[in-house]
């Protein structure tokens, strides 16, 4: 068990370091002649108007919220799915009830028109 997480830890470190190697290589051999025009924001040749970090549509936030709720739900379901083999049928139905309650939430959001992109 312990060596599993040690391996994952090593993998994360090495996995982050190796992609940097070609960047360093490129830094060594690539030309570097910056000028203001080259380094300006690319918008198909037009000048940028106003702030680039623009404000976003509220709809993105709604979808992120709905996603968050379902993400947490699925995380709860993983242990349930694993234990399924050892559980009596009645207990399996608890998981179904769990899903059912959340589907009710999805239906509510749907009926309220929250899943529309408008």
């Amino acid at each position, binding site marked *: 068990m312990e*060596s*599993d997480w040690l*391996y*994952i830890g*090593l*993998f*994360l470190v*090495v*996995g*982050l370091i*190796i*992609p940097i190697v*070609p*960047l360093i*290589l*490129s*830094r060594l*051999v*690539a*030309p*570097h*002649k910056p000028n*203001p025009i*080259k*380094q*300006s*924001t*690319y*918008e*198909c040749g037009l000048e*940028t108007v106003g702030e*680039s*970090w*623009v404000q976003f549509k509220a709809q*993105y936030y709604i*979808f*992120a919220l*709905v*996603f968050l709720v*379902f*993400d947490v739900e*699925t*995380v709860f*379901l*993983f242990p349930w*799915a*694993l234990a*399924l*083999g050892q559980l009596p*049928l009645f207990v*399996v139905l608890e*998981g*179904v009830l769990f*899903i059912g309650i959340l*589907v009710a939430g*999805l239906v509510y959001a*749907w009926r309220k028109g929250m*899943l*529309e*992109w408008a």
Partner: protein
Amino acid sequence: MNLWNDPINFIAGWLRALLTGWGLSLDLAKIFIMLVGVGVLIVGSLVLAIFLVWVERKVVARFQDRVGPNRIGPYGLIQPFADIIKLIIKEDITPTTADKVIYNLAPVLALASVLFLWAVLPLASNIYGVDLNVAALYLVAAGALGTLAIIMGGWASNNKYALLGAFRMVATMISYEIPMVVVLLIPTLLAGTMSFRGIVESQAGAWYVLMAPLAMLIFLISAVAELGRAPFDLNEAESEIIAGFHIEYTGMKFGLFYAGELLHAFTFGGFVALLFFGGYQFFGLEKLGPLVAVTIFLAKAMFGYWVIMWIKYTMPRIRIDHLLAFNWKFLTPLALILLVVTALLHKLLAGLPLWGITLIMFLTNVLIAWVTVEILRAYGRKQRQAEEVLAPAGQH
């Protein structure tokens, strides 16, 4: 223990003997061997990514009735190396208004989040990075880091198009993550384990594609969306937002995003293979030796990758409202229904022989598919009628 039947342990044992012979303590030797294993796996997958550049270019050429790269080397096989040299010697341009640190971190994280997936891929029954007991969730976690990399790249570029692309991409990824995780639960509950090796081993009798064909389809669709490939490639809709979140990236930094995308697609081909098509198993052929098993697995993964490419180069791009509606009003409810039905069937049929379970589950899937199609047809008919009321025929 010999080289042919158990190569990893053979080499590890040999290295351990060598290193402890040099006077290293056993723990240090273990860590060193692990580092070697990690390095080999990561470098190997990156070499694979280079090869995938060639595969992708060759296949897209065939789909578009062209020949593709054929000048450098036999069948243009040296082409990707030329591409890489070109990317490395290109000037790296960073916009003055960009947020430097995050801007440079994003491509590294984007590729790394794909590489992380290779830690849990079982290439053969005794060739794998680590047999994690939460591998299915680890897959989702690595995807979360990928999402983060994209939003970092899009935001740090300080470009409206990049930000738009990043937002669309993230909205797609988080939406399609739900049906993906829900159908990920189906092989998990059928196998009774989250470890990928366990899932593969439990398919020795029948591949899960027979028990849960619809789950396979949903996984494939949401994987394509997760990858941000056509028809879900709103993140880089060239006609609208130029190149999406990586618009400001040049040279090798763009190369990292690109390599990450290709490797990601291939890796998901591998996940489809191991979750639903028996992974490294192929009718007992894998027992010949681990290298045969690795070949089988890579061939299956390549087939999955080919299907993803096939979808990409055949479908037109869909609109963002359709994309989100398709996910939340169709895929997610369907995936949840499938999960409940599969769980109940799995429980009720526990005593039956394997072929009986497989047959009943397959027929249930067909039934669900048929009902779904009928509902969609009725819905489509209603929509058309509503449109005809608004604009009667002949007055268009």
